[in-house]
């Protein structure tokens, strides 16, 4: 109906409908409020326009009215807040077992790498109906990964990971924009999200020139850098045994506990002395500047592969809905 003059972009993810529903609710509320106020103004302005011999009636104000029109909107606002918060909470809580794609942003391109090892530039192929989690970082300035059709956006920061997840519902090609101003070719830092049927996707995946999965690349780098000398997988070496560590709480030397998430693994490689695991000495060398963002991603993927999520072994079981 709105093909020639659309009011919203394609709705191509599980979350998009939720956002649109709240949006439409808000448009209705906002229209109602503005129409009500405008109508009142117009009616008053016409009804009480100046006439000879009729004086204005002085009215002091009304505390009851003031309270009413403070509390009522506040009630409505709280509904909007709660609704928006629920959507946001879902958007920021990636489901377990999502397929992971590592994203490295740089001026002015998107570099993406699949778990299976496929690399893409400014283009992301994903299957319909599968949860995809993006683990993103930037090589230089702040960028923002924005897919209007999925109604999601997340800034991509240098020096740490931010994440984003979605489940595409409709095959097609959608815009990928950089939404955070990042310099000269900011508007050229665009790409596309190619959503495919799972079979096509498998075909695409096997047709690529992947050089082994990301985790296995990571394992190679792990070997090359000599990490296994200390991080042994059979016993505790001079460094912690990394098997089964990922996603679990870690007791630190100074008594704090942190969750071993992507950012923790990343920090522990780049700046090992920052959060030393309890019982170990801070003897690990600093790798800041020695590994590239891509190598770092591979290492993180490798460490994660040492702790497979429960029930997530093998192919993701869920079928696409549409």
């Amino acid at each position: 109906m709105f093909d020639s003059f659309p009011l919203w972009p394609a709705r191509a993810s599980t979350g998009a409908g939720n956002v649109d529903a709240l949006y439409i609710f808000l448009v209705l509320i906002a229209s109602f409020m503005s129409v009500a106020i405008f109508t009142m103004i117009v009616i008053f302005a016409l009804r009480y326009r100046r006439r000879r011999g009729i004086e204005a009636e002085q009215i002091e104000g009304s505390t009851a009215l003031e309270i009413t029109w403070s509390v009522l909107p506040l009630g409505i606002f709280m509904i909007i807040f709660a609704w928006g918060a629920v959507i946001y909470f879902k958007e920021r809580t990636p489901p377990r077992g999502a397929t992971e794609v590592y994203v490295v942003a740089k001026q002015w391109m998107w570099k993406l790498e699949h778990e299976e090892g496929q690399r893409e530039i400014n283009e992301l192929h994903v299957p319909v109906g599968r949860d995809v989690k993006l683990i993103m970082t930037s090589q230089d300035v702040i960028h923002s990964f924005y897919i209007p059709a999925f109604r999601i956006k997340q800034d991509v920061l240098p020096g740490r990971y931010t994440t984003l997840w979605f489940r595409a519902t409709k095959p097609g090609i959608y815009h990928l924009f950089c939404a955070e101003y990042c310099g000269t070719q900011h508007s050229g830092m665009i790409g596309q999200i190619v959503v495919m049927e799972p079979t096509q996707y498998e075909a695409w995946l096997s047709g690529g020139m992947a050089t082994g999965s990301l985790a296995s690349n990571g394992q190679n780098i792990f070997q090359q850098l000599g990490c296994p000398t200390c991080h042994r997988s059979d016993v505790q070496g001079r460094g912690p045994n990394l098997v089964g560590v990922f996603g679990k709480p870690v007791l630190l030397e100074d008594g704090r506990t942190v969750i071993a998430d992507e950012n923790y693994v990343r920090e522990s490689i780049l700046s090992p002395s920052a959060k030393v695991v309890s019982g170990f000495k801070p003897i690990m060398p600093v790798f800041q500047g020695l590994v590239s963002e891509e190598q770092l991603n591979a290492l993180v993927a490798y460490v994660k592969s040492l702790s497979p999520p429960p029930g997530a072994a093998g192919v993701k079981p869920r079928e696409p809905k549409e």
Partner: protein
Amino acid sequence: MSDSPIAVEEHGPELRHHFETVEQQRNAASLGMWLFLGTEIMFFGGMFCAYLIYRMNYFNEFAAGSRSLDVWLGTINTMVLICSSLTVALGVRAAQMGKRTLLVILLLTTIIFGFAFLGIKGIEWYDKYKEHHIPGTSFSADDLVRDYPQIHIDQSHEQLYFSLYFAMTGLHALHMVIGVGIFAFLTFHAWKGRYTPNYYTPVEIGGLYWHFVDIVWIYLFPLLYLIDRRPLG
């Protein structure tokens, strides 16, 4: 300015024409200075916010950086500023009582204390320069890694401590320089005999500024020098 349409009362030349009374004028000036000090709190507040967050994240580096400062020079400098605050407070009192010579002497002493503070600060900065602790390409915290093997230091994070150290002490020193300028102005006018028991507002509000700069240092001293001086285990 003599053609003010409203000459409400007899008043000395120090009452500006748009005020009704000397009292009103003095209260206005004092409120203005306090408001300005309020903005100054927020000005330094931005740096305190950065300090708080980085200190939480990088406590080790902050502790090591703090140890590398000369705590005795810092203590002496704190005392110098406290002495200068005393001379300022006594100066305001001298102005209240109309003791011109005493006022001039106290203002001059304050300026000398101000220079002493800046001199000591300069020595400390120069030490940091010699130790390659100034953030940038030539920064090196190798000496800290060597001296404090018990503390796990990430050299890049160490730069954050010194960045904040130089930003905070630098802007504080800039305030000191401005303070010395203000006090030179006050001394000159005090010498000329402009300030009387009826009119010493400039001395008073200049003093407020000086005390404020002192207070900032009272916080900077423990926050920068005394982060972690406990004996290393």
